[in-house]
């Protein structure tokens, strides 16, 4: 299940819903991304997240399909917020359920790496010294590249 929304989300509630009525799930891993109060500049006061409606949902769907093709997963939830957020606010949630922990850990990591490099979201940070658009990071591409190089080793 994939959602793009302005409203905050409740990690516990989302995980409970994913697991409701299931007894075949042996492991659930969740990742929550938060707004930091420092990034390219200190004293970030707010963040505006923009996305490309339609393409965003399609890109996230493709990333989840990619994860499901690589690991035996029993449930995935991805929620990404848009609009104006304050430091400490949750931005993104990825919950992955599987029979075994390794698959759940790796699939969650994979989804976040691909989300950061392929899903059409853009962050604008508002700081005490002005507003600026966040620049892409080389390290994010290196992280996503890991999943391409060790393609053959993954079950």
């Amino acid at each position: 299940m994939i959602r793009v929304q302005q409203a905050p989300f409740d990690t516990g509630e989302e995980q409970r819903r994913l697991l409701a009525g299931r007894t075949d799930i042996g492991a659930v891993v969740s990742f929550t991304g938060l707004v930091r109060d420092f990034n390219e500049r200190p004293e970030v006061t707010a963040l505006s997240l923009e996305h490309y409606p339609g393409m965003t949902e399609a890109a996230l769907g493709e990333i989840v399909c990619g994860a499901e093709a690589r690991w035996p997963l029993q449930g995935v939830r991805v929620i990404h917020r848009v609009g104006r957020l304050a430091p400490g606010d949750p931005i993104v949630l990825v919950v992955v359920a599987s029979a075994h922990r390794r698959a759940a850990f790796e699939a969650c990591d994979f989804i976040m790496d691909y989300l950061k490099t392929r899903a059409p979201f853009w962050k604008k940070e508002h700081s005490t010294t002005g507003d600026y658009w966040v620049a892409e990071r080389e390290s994010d591409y290196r992280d996503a590249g890991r999943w391409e190089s060790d393609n053959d080793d993954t079950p």
Partner: protein
Amino acid sequence: MTLTHLNQRGEAHMVDVADKPESRREASASGYIQMKPETLALLSEGGLPKGDVLATARIAGIQAAKRTHELIPLCHALALSKVTVDFRLDEENSRVEVFASCRLNGRTGVEMEALTAVSVACLTLYDMCKAVDKDMEIGAIHLDTKQGGKSGDYQRQAHTSATPIVTGEGMAGQVSVGTRCDIDSACVRVKFLAELRERLGISELSLPLDSLPSADVGGLKAALVKRDARFAKLTEGRVLCAVNQVMALDPTPITNEDEVAFFPPVTGG
């Protein structure tokens, strides 16, 4: 929001900047002087009685920037590190566009200097050309960008552009979807997202398909650049493209009613 040049009693005063940290300050401003097409032709051919009009106006603009504090009562005297004044002869609209930018490392902004440079360059153009044209009109003198300082960076939105090509407004955090072509013939809908939208000052437009030299993304870029030089930004640096919301490259074909989006590298998560 308060007026910094008024003290608590509402009297004009000069802001004490001694305790402000030094930082790199830059500002750019522009304006234009409208004239008869014959005057513009004389100016570009160098046939005006007072000689090289643009060179003179450029020097006048630079000199004016340096002396802004003598003209504007509460401005500080600044040791500018750079002043540029440039002109663009706009034959279509029969005007000379004037651009100025100023820079320094210091404690106060340089937007007044850039605006003064544009104003005085325009006045000098008037003086140099008035023998042949007294109807000239100076207009649209405004700040374009400002960087550095406590109040943060400023970029003027291009909605007041002389030839508006904006067909829709995008708010930060939102992009309108599903707009139909606003032209009758076969056309392509183009969107500009995030930072690219702000840099170009436009969120979307429609273009007749037959104005593309080739019916693909590369052809669309060429048609956009031909329409307005600022679209050259689409070919600089990392600009990504999607056709009908699927990632695309220059050879990706475009057909009638396609939605093409240009955007910077993604930064979500």
